[in-house]
């Protein structure tokens, strides 16, 4: 079939249309789900029980970060440029401090190497081109399948001067759960970091008094981690026994 028989339509057999390394990346991604319909026993006659679903490979965006169709993303390149310049002034570099940048759903995420976090936070707050005055706290996320990067701390920063919003994400291994504290830059993070320590066991080095905040002081474990059970008791309703939420059928 000669190319002109396509009448200008792209040749779907061509190699140039294959997403680069997508299949390979996908096969290396962790398995997030096995089976389907929640059936785990021999009762599954559909064959879907043997299904493996792999997670998304880690996203990474390339410049330009701004999407011309989405006005909410218009400032992303300005922030990245200003941060790059500001870090260079401080003798650091963007590539050293930032692992990757992800633009997803009109939000920009800077994945920061943990040792660079205090410097990046300080620059983000103080540089006149950046001026992220408000930190909206830390949110921990536990990804047990993300080997050597199990614990993530997610920071949302807001600039009132420029009316912008960005996200920083820092990862640390479960075996060495240390992330530098940024309370010196953002005092509001005092309680937020205590909360993340309490619920995830991330140790924020340099925090003035890293103690539990929600759970009692002598509590064992960190309840928001994925390996910490929810707990619960079965409930009886009109003669039927309703199991606790974590023992109910999960479709996940």
């Amino acid at each position, binding site marked *: 079939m000669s190319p002109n028989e396509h009448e200008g339509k792209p040749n779907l057999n061509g190699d140039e249309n294959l997403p680069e390394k997508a299949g390979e990346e996908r096969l290396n991604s962790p398995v997030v789900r096995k089976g389907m319909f929640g059936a785990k026993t021999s009762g599954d006659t559909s064959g879907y029980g043997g299904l493996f679903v792999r997670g998304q490979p880690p996203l990474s965006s390339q410049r330009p970060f701004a999407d011309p169709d989405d006005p909410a993303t218009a400032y992303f390149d300005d922030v990245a440029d200003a941060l790059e310049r500001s870090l260079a002034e401080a003798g650091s570099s963007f590539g050293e401090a930032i692992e990757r940048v992800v633009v997803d759903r009109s939000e920009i995420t800077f994945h920061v190497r943990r040792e660079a976090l205090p410097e990046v936070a300080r620059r983000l707050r103080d540089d006149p081109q950046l001026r992220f005055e408000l930190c909206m706290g830390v949110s921990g996320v536990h990804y047990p399948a993300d080997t050597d990067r199990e614990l993530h701390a997610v920071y*949302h920063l807001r600039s009132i001067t420029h009316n912008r919003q960005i996200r920083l994400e820092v990862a640390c291994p479960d075996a060495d759960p240390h992330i530098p504290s940024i309370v010196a830059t953002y005092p509001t993070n*005092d309680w937020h970091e205590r909360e993340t320590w309490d619920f995830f066991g991330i140790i924020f080095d340099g925090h003035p008094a890293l103690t539990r905040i929600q759970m009692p002081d002598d509590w064992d474990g960190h309840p928001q981690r994925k390996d910490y059970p929810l707990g619960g008791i079965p409930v009886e309703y009109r003669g039927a026994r309703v199991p606790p939420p974590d023992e109910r059928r999960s479709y996940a």
Partner: protein
Amino acid sequence: MSTTSTEAYVDISGGDWEEVVREAQQGSADRLVVNMGPQHPSTHGVLRLILTLDGETVTEARVGIGYLHTGIEKNTEYRTWTQGTTFVTRMDYLMPIFNEVAYCLAVERLLGISDRIPERANVIRVLMMELNRISSHLVAMATFGMELGATTIMTNGFRERELVLDIFELITGLRMNHAYIRPGGVAQDLPHSAAGKIREFLAEMPKRLQILRKLLDANPVYLQRTRDVAHLDLSGCMALGVTGPMLRASGLAWDLRKAKPYCGYENYEFDVPVSDGCDVYARYRVRVAEMEQSLRIIEQCLDFLEPGPIMIDDAKIGWPAKLAIGSDGMGNSPDHIAHIMGTSMEALIHHFKIVTEGFRVPPGQAYTAVESAKGELGCHAVSDGGPRPYRVHFRDPSFTHLQAVAAMCEGGTVADVIAAVASLDPVMGGVDR
């Protein structure tokens, strides 16, 4: 093992008060550490304040929280995305609608359907949020009056709040914990009588606010208790992450409804009240002015309400049944039941699947924030692609604001601690989640 006490102290963690006073008078201790709360009528629920006193002066104020921790964030990880609203509405129980909207906006952004929410649903959301702002501010004022010993303020505030709760009950069926805002829209349409009831409210409320203002605005006792008390300036607010009426009472007109509009707030005309008093009185004035602006927005909502759908036109997300409240007060939908039980097997399967399994949300994370009655209420939602949230975290304004207690109270008197905490308007359900 023996412990040597480095200084003399008087233990007042319990016991007979007269003995405690005698011991304190006889002893040589010059500092008094008072444990105020967690069960104390002036601490807004179960807040615990640890105050170090030198006479009447507070030299150190520390805050203990966690007495109302209910694990809402953890629990949402074991329910569907839709069931999440039922949990988050119970966090800050004085502003349930804001909790629901912040959560639903995050879920909708993860689903990529933010632009497809029907116009009518957005107007109803704004309407409900502004009603909720009024009810939340009224409680803030009522409890404030009570804590300063003015019970008339308390009874008035709670009485006016009932007007709002009656409307909530009419629209959602519940006075609190509504679970009314759902991913994709709202749970059900406004009843026919709602618009008339809200118009009555709009006519009545300004008079009630006027009465409240007459009681407080220039009341010398109130002024003495609130003027120049619990000072927190703009740089303090920025450092401590303080937003909402507290920030606007320190002179910065920052309001997410104007800065980052959501739910169509850019279409409404309203002002952002500001004061540069930085004290408790300024916060009171900002809250009153905000209630007046909320009334303006509610009036515009009624004008914007056009007939139309209230749930996204997507059967994979929207709830299948259009429930109506029957004579027994229970939700029911005879037409829908006739359809799934009588005519369409596929509709029955679909109903069963979406109700028990829920919808799947593409992997990723989103942070959405709304300008709640108390400040920026943010929701950080993470999905792993499954039918349940992977992680939901709330940046609750009350939690953040309580950190400011030390900055506002140290160096002041014990009596001003009450005024300072009351002006923060913390709700422990939101603080501890």
